[in-house]
């Protein structure tokens, strides 16, 4: 019975991952959902693969490392993202460097693929750095501060939910093949980062 209870979790995790991988292109301007700024921010994150994939990689990796790591990422990342967003509000032009984006894919995907056993402190630092950098980019050029705060809150809420779901799924995986499936996802993310890196160098 126990086997029956846990056997479908990896399947759902895979379905969730596949769906998230089908995110649509990022755009410089916010998506207009028609439901207000909060949902515009939420949708902006969900429609930005350059944001969502590193977050997913961090969530899966911290989930692989255990519940304590998952919890740390769950709270550190959104808070850092929000702080980064506030810092970015004072800047006008958004300059997202493609090589840095590729480096995030490569680093977090590689850590996930290798199931790297880094300390909780390093994991926290990585989550904070990721949040600050991407939050800063999101905050840039958002326009009026008051409306931007609501957008940022929606965005951070989406991050919190995604990290909670992804890390919680992985924390409960115990079967070796299921954990390997998660690591394969990491290798795919890192491989995408390598290609993006080549692309960025070619474009220079």
């Amino acid at each position, binding site marked *: 019975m126990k086997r029956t209870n846990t056997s479908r979790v990896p399947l759902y995790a895979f379905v969730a991952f596949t*769906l998230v991988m089908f995110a*649509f292109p990022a755009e410089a301007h916010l998506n207009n959902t028609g439901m207000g700024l909060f949902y515009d921010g939420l949708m902006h994150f969900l429609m930005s693969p350059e944001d969502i994939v590193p977050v997913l990689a961090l969530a899966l990796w911290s989930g692989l490392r255990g519940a304590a790591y998952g919890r740390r990422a769950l709270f550190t990342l959104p808070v850092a993202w929000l702080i980064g967003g506030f810092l970015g509000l004072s800047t006008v032009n958004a300059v997202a460097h493609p090589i840095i984006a590729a480096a995030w894919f490569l680093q977090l995907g590689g850590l996930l693929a290798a199931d790297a056993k880094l300390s909780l402190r390093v994991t926290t630092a990585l989550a904070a750095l990721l949040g600050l950098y991407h939050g800063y980019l999101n905050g840039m050029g958002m326009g009026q501060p008051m409306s931007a705060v609501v957008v940022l809150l929606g965005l951070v809420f989406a991050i919190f939910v995604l990290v909670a779901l992804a890390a919680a799924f992985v924390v409960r995986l115990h079967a070796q093949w299921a954990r390997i499936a998660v690591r394969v996802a990491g290798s795919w993310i890192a*491989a995408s980062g*390598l*290609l993006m890196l080549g692309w960025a*160098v070619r474009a220079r």
Partner: protein
Amino acid sequence: MGHPGFTFIGARYLGVLVIVALWSQNAVAHPQKGEAVGFLTGFRHPISGFDHVLAMVAVGLWGAQLGAPAIWLLPVAFPMVMAFGGMLGLMGVPLPGTEYGIALSAILLGCAVLFELKPPLGVAAALVGFFAIFHGHAHGTELPPGQSALLYSMGFVVATGCLHALGIGIGTVHRWRWGQSLLRCAGGLVAIGGAFFMWKAFA
């Protein structure tokens, strides 16, 4: 006692449901040219060449024959090595004899499956990794202009991984005697296909 079970199952469904619900398409007033099709173009690229498909599936078949840990090491390592080759191609780093390397990979991997060769894991990984660079390089130099680098790359890698998964999926028949024979036949077909592409490369 029944409630915890219900909560457990309900939470799983709820998790998937939330993601599905959030996965809605946006209305794009000003679509950026090339990006909308980036993922699909990238996804189609690895499966557009039959020589690549043969080799990718053969990696999965061989992994299934070799069993653990090769069955999971190869799918984890291969996409990254192949992407490394793709990165070299994108950067313009030349790699001579790419077409021959690709055809040779199908021949050797097909033969490995045909004869059910079981070398040490390091040898198998090195062989697969070596040829992965040729496959990645070929893709890297053929990338069409005007695509979104991020989405194209993701589509490309996901398609490659799916081909491996296909090979591993087919390879699960290895547990039966008839399945072992079937896999060896498939390996023979891959090797013949590789020989054909080698002949074409020389012609």
